[in-house]
């Protein structure tokens, strides 16, 4: 199967999301990448290490802004020129819009929020969680190309060695694609990821005992590069802001790592985080429901375990 993978880059480096999808594509068939925008030629070669045999690039002016519609033109042209069986994207604000625009342009099938791709016989099958990650659905395509949007962070980049040929290609733009223009761009020096985007969340519940104990979660989150979450009970009590509430009446999150500190795991909380990749729970009550659905459960005093954990993580990261 022949794949075309959309790769994004930022500040001279290819983004992990696209590389993860590329690695998967390379393991299933023949993979080519496409990089668009300033410095595309420079970064494109790096995709070879992740399994791309060819990387198509364009540094056209139109790609200087992070806008989707010119990219739809580019991919549509490339699809016309190279006839891939499938076009893959790692989800991002930009990539999602490009994938959907491309699906409309080519009248092709788009499956999104995929957590995996496999080949069953000759057919490409996507795996997609549904209903709050309680059900896994197998999805397929009819016709070509097959367009797939993979959930952010679901696939890890795997280096397979190898190098890629970098090729320029020509794009013609539709009359409407360049109507939207970038007026201003601000990079945010954020204090950490927001809870929705975070790869790691350290959440605190009633077991913390007091609002001051949230500093334990904050420090661990900072050491892990993540965000702090809270349960309904502690938000109700005013210990932490509502914007950090995870659960049925708060936010639904699915980070790669969720550390639950002093959280009992009632279903109202569970439905907000059960899709997390790995769940580690620390609670002194051995019968807390959270121990039924976490991956690693530690029965113990979080006031001892969490600071120790923070210290060890910091030591590993070499900062102190």
């Amino acid at each position: 199967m022949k794949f075309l993978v959309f790769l994004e880059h930022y500040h001279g480096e290819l983004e992990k999301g696209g590389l993860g999808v590329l690695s998967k594509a390379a393991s299933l068939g023949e993979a080519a990448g496409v990089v668009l925008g300033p410095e595309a030629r420079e970064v494109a070669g790096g995709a070879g290490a992740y399994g791309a045999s060819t990387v198509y690039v364009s540094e056209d002016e139109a790609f200087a802004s992070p806008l989707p519609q010119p990219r739809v033109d580019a991919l549509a042209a490339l699809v016309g020129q190279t006839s891939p069986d499938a076009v893959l994207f790692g989800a991002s604000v930009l990539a999602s819009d490009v994938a959907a625009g491309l699906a409309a342009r080519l009248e092709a099938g788009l499956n999104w929020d995929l957590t995996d791709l496999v080949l069953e016989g000759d057919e490409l099958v996507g795996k997609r969680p549904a209903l709050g990650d309680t059900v896994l659905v197998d999805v397929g395509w009819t016709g070509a190309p097959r367009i797939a949007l993979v959930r952010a962070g679901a696939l890890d980049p795997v280096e397979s060695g190898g190098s890629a040929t970098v090729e320029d290609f020509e794009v013609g733009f539709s009359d409407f694609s360049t109507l939207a223009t970038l007026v201003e761009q601000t990079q945010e020096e954020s204090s950490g990821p927001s809870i929705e985007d975070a790869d790691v969340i350290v959440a605190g519940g009633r077991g913390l005992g007091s609002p001051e104990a949230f500093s334990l979660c904050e420090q661990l989150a900072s050491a892990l590069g993540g965000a702090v979450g809270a349960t309904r009970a502690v938000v109700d009590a005013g210990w932490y802001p509502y914007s950090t509430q995870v659960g049925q009446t708060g936010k639904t999150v699915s980070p790669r790592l969720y550390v639950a500190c002093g959280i009992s795991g009632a279903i109202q909380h569970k439905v907000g985080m059960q899709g997390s990749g790995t769940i580690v729970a620390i609670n002194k009550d051995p019968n807390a429901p959270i121990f039924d659905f976490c991956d690693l459960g530690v029965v113990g005093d979080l006031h001892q375990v969490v600071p120790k954990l923070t210290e060890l993580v910091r030591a590993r990261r070499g900062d102190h």
Partner: protein
Amino acid sequence: MTRPLDFPPAFGPTDVMAVPTDPPDQRIEVGILIVGAGPGGLACAIRLGQLLEERPDIKERLGEVPVAVLEKGKQPGSHLLSGAVVQPRALRELFRGRLTMADIPTYGQVPGEAVYALTRRTSYRIPAPPTMRNHGNFILSVSELGRFLAQQAESLGIAVLPETPATRLLVQEGRVVGARTGDRGRGRNGERLANFEAGSDVVAGVTVLADGTQGLLSSAAIERFGLAGENPQIWALGVKEVWRVRRPLRRIIHTMGWPLRAFAGYGEFGGSFVYPMGDDLVSVGFVAGLESRDVELSVHDLLQEFKTHRLVWSILRGGERVAWGAKTITEGGFYSLPRRFNAPGLLLVGEGAGLVNVPRLKGIHYAIESGRLAAEAAFRVLERGEVPSRIGALDSYDASLRRSGLWQELYEVRNMRQAFDKGFFVGGALASAMTVTKGHAPNGRRPTHPNAAAPLVRTGRARRYPKPDGKYIFDKLSSVFASGNRTRDDQPSHLRVETRVRRPVAEAWEWMCPAHVYEVGRDLGEGMVSVHVTPSNCVQCGAITAKGGQLTPPEGGSGPEYTVT
């Protein structure tokens, strides 16, 4: 002796009364206002719709919105819960000449029935008492019935307004002039949020209160207009689950006895029901009176315990719980009925007015019947060109209630519920005597005592409750989730309770509440504790009102989202 009654909240009926405060051009004017889109309120609306259809001249006089129904739930049916086995008489009368029972969503007629007395290990089939013979009655979901009746009302041009609670009864110069709706968009401390929307004064010539068990406006109106009956009103708490089952159940079942205890001193009265709903659903519920005295009495957990009995296990085994809910049931019967069901500009309908027959386990058809009669009384006043707020103008409603079949039925069983104050066996004997003699013996009025006045005792009862496993036996928070409750967290608490109480009271509330709203908080010394309240769990069953606090409606649309209960 510690009694919940001794810790009243800082809230009373006068807090529910108000005069219209909106500028006159901001008030919403309707012809007839109905509070509550339950079977009672909607039957009233439907009957009015039918009558007004035939008299467009009268309809015209009622203005742009002739009839409006206010409903606090997300939609009609969201807050409706019952068994239910319904006597069809009232529905047939309501839809005479238009629909038959075949057009109404039900699960068919009762296929057969059995009554059991249970012990922990066995069940004894007993002959169905005459009050419990359901041949010819229909099984249905009152939530589904509510949705159906709302559609019927809307097709007759009635405005049904969901997510709109009535929080105040508007009374001016001794007349009821309408109701005020609740604010939306307030934060936890009452502050106005960005999307704050104030409630409105809805003014009407006639206000019909059909706000159900623990109806805030009904109870306040009864107090305000001196309408209270001879006995204080009392309640039971019912908790039910709906299960998808492997094998169809082909009869309705009622049980008494285990897990309730027979000794009078515990004040445990109640029983269970198991009803098939079609071939693949079963409703199972447990009901217990709230005068129960044990601190650890939890009807939620009694239902879980009940499910462990072989009789129930054989029905539910291999199935899946698809819904859960809880609601109080008005139990006082005949002597707790208001002494009058109307006041200037006001009509009282359904369960909020005490119209429930506990021994027969029937209330839905009384609600429908009283709703219909209320509509006819209001219509007569309009027909005569009278002012509905004139004293006595609506008295024909009372007269028609007394002439109706429901009145006689309630009279026959007027002392039956109270007999069970003597415990299961004596109560049972008394009840039999009453049944056989059609209520003539023993004679006289037996008193009731307010639920919150029952002094609390401790017996270690909680040890018997089964441990949740998340598949067959459930904990309270899972149940709240299964009710569809997604109440917004940062709104003001709608529960008026004293939060500094003696420990046994806090514990009693913690066990009593099926939704885990109340928890024993900090120790305050001298035997007192604080009460921790989580209002967003509340499924508005009303138990707290019976046991010393007061439930008021939260922001519109909050609470459970029942669909098949």
